[in-house]
């Protein structure tokens, strides 16, 4: 990884040009990284306890999420894949909505329709991801085109994984972005794995970053376990896009420390030594060492910060456990702007049976036909 941009070495020493962030800003990045790890831990516990169905963690990827989201403005867009929820929280997704989404309960803004780990936050332009790998890439490009056409200086950060670089959405998206010169930053998080397929098996190209010049714009490799390198590379790419100079692709090289999801056992396909080697490069430990050296956090303070975060997270979990069930009418709502005749009738047939069986709730009544 010698060519990748690095500012902090794994031991926390400074080896590159520091971005001009204040102590308070640095500390905030650190807390956001801790929060992501704390939420992952809690969500995994809830999953094991059978309270939620599925977790796709970002453990080990905290520097990529926090570093790449930090330079975004509130009106910029973040197009996500599976693991960017922590970045959404950092930009303003309320923790309660995050947890409600994991519970897929009635407080979820998506009305419990998506499986876990599919967040959205309209207020900070963080749209809902489908599940279909690579499809959000062209959406981000089209939306960036719309921003550009209105003469706005909004930038679109389009996230995806190493596996997604093989999708047709990757090719279409980068190709259109280059031709249209849209204000977008492609953020490829190369976390080593696409479920059980190593990122080295995705392409015969020299690197993922090497693909970008073929589409007419630069590709930059970044140490994805170095939050300052991620922040700095992203800030540059965003400014370039804002100036109207077109897209950039960042490849954040990192490692998915846990399984693909709560349903995956990674020991089946990867060596413990590889995981241990990456553990030594842990992004949070690295940043902590730097911050201690700089006097921004003190030795042992991390544990206190984590305790505070967990208290906050647990309170939110407690609240969300008590959410009411989804209204049955949501079965047929939001398919179209208005519920069409055939769906009203399908629902009415269904609710007549539910009422006969005593399964209907108050308010579940039929639609007028």
């Amino acid at each position: 990884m010698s060519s990748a941009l690095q500012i902090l070495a794994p031991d926390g020493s400074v080896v590159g040009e520091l971005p001009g962030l204040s102590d308070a800003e640095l500390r905030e990045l650190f807390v956001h990284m801790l929060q992501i790890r704390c939420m992952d831990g809690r969500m995994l516990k809830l999953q094991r306890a059978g309270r939620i169905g599925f977790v796709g963690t970002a453990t080990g990827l905290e520097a990529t999420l926090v570093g790449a989201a930090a330079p975004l403005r509130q009106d910029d867009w973040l197009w996500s894949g599976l693991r960017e929820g922590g970045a959404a929280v950092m930009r303003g997704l309320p923790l309660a909505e995050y947890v409600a989404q994991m519970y897929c309960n009635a407080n979820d803004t998506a009305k419990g329709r998506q499986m876990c780990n599919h967040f959205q936050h309209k207020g900070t332009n963080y749209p809902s991801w489908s599940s279909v790998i690579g499809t959000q890439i062209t959406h981000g490009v089209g939306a960036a085109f719309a921003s550009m056409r209105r003469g706005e200086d909004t930038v679109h950060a389009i996230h995806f994984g190493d596996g997604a670089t093989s999708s047709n959405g990757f090719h279409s998206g980068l190709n259109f972005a280059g031709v249209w010169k849209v204000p977008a930053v492609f953020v490829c998080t190369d976390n080593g794995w696409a479920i059980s397929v190593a990122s080295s098996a995705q392409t015969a190209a020299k690197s993922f970053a090497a693909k970008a010049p073929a589409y007419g714009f630069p590709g930059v490799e970044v140490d994805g376990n170095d939050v300052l390198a991620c922040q700095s590379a992203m800030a540059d790419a965003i400014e370039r896009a804002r100036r109207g100079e077109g897209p950039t692709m960042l490849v954040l090289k990192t490692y998915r420390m846990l399984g693909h999801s709560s349903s995956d056992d990674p020991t089946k396909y990867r060596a413990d030594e590889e995981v241990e080697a990456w553990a030594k490069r842990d992004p949070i430990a690295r940043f902590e060492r730097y911050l201690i050296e700089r006097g921004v956090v003190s030795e042992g303070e991390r544990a206190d910060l984590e305790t505070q975060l967990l208290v906050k997270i647990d309170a939110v979990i407690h609240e969300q456990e008590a959410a009411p069930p989804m209204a049955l009418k949501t079965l047929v709502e939001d398919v179209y702007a208005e519920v069409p005749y055939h769906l009203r009738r399908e629902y009415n047939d269904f609710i007549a049976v539910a009422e006969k069986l005593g399964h209907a709730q108050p308010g579940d009544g039929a639609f007028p036909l």
Partner: protein
Amino acid sequence: MANLTLIQAVNDGLRTVMKADDSVVVFGEDVGPKGGVFLATEGLTADFGESRCFDTPLSEDGIIGTAIGMAMNGLRPVAEIQFQDFIFPAFDQIVSEAAKLRYRSGGQYTAPMVIRTPYGGGIRGGLYHSQSGEAYFAHTAGLKVVIPSTPHDAKGLLIASIQDPDPVLFMEPKALYRSVKGEVPEGEYTVDLSTLRTVRQGGDVTIYCYGAMVPVVERAAAQAAEQRGIDCLVVDLRTLMPLDEEGVLEAAKQTGRVVVVHEAPRFCGYGAEISALIAEHCIEYMEAPVRRVTGFDTPFPNTLEHHYLPDDRRVLDAIESVYDF
């Protein structure tokens, strides 16, 4: 009123909305200065500028994926897929993304967009310039599927589709592009996206059809009247999703004898839905089994396409068979 061909009416519809709404953008392969391979977008780049009507790279997946992003961020994209046969690289974007976005986001994000595409046979286009894939799309919740058969409806339905808050697949019968002409009102008007059109009144046999099959059925109905005195009620469905179900059932009840005509293959074709609706909701009115006149369950042929496509003789035979049952 102007007397226009169907493709001129499409062009007029696009111009009308582009004039009224600056957020409408038209794009696709060769739609810019050339005006599209069928000339549906002729003159739009010249009249509205390159930022309103433009060519894209050759990628249906890219065209539809970026259209969704534009729609999510305030534009009203009208994307052209050059032939419906080439829509399948974008099938994922249409079915998994555009159609499901409103639902999966609980209504927070939507994709108000139109995909225009010429469909159907009759131009000697072989397997890949002739297909009628409406059933794939009508099967997809969240998508609207619209097929005009007259210049008047082409313009009115297109304007309604572009103004609609949901994604619409607008399938244009290329066989009718220049073969039908009709009166088209000037300026803006819309045709409702869930109301069928009664083409011809009659009390003996009901025939459902849409798109390029409408003139074929009209000819057959005229022959049935002339030769046998059979009065056909001809229904142009116009919007396959959402379907005017009440109108469909009403029309079936009026005669008790039903024929469904489409050029797409029969198996799981749109006619199956019409037959099933009638069987479920008004079987007691039926005097004869429902007959379907359709394309074959084969790939689209080339030199034999005139045998593959339902013609007035096959439709007439079906009319007689349900009438004489």
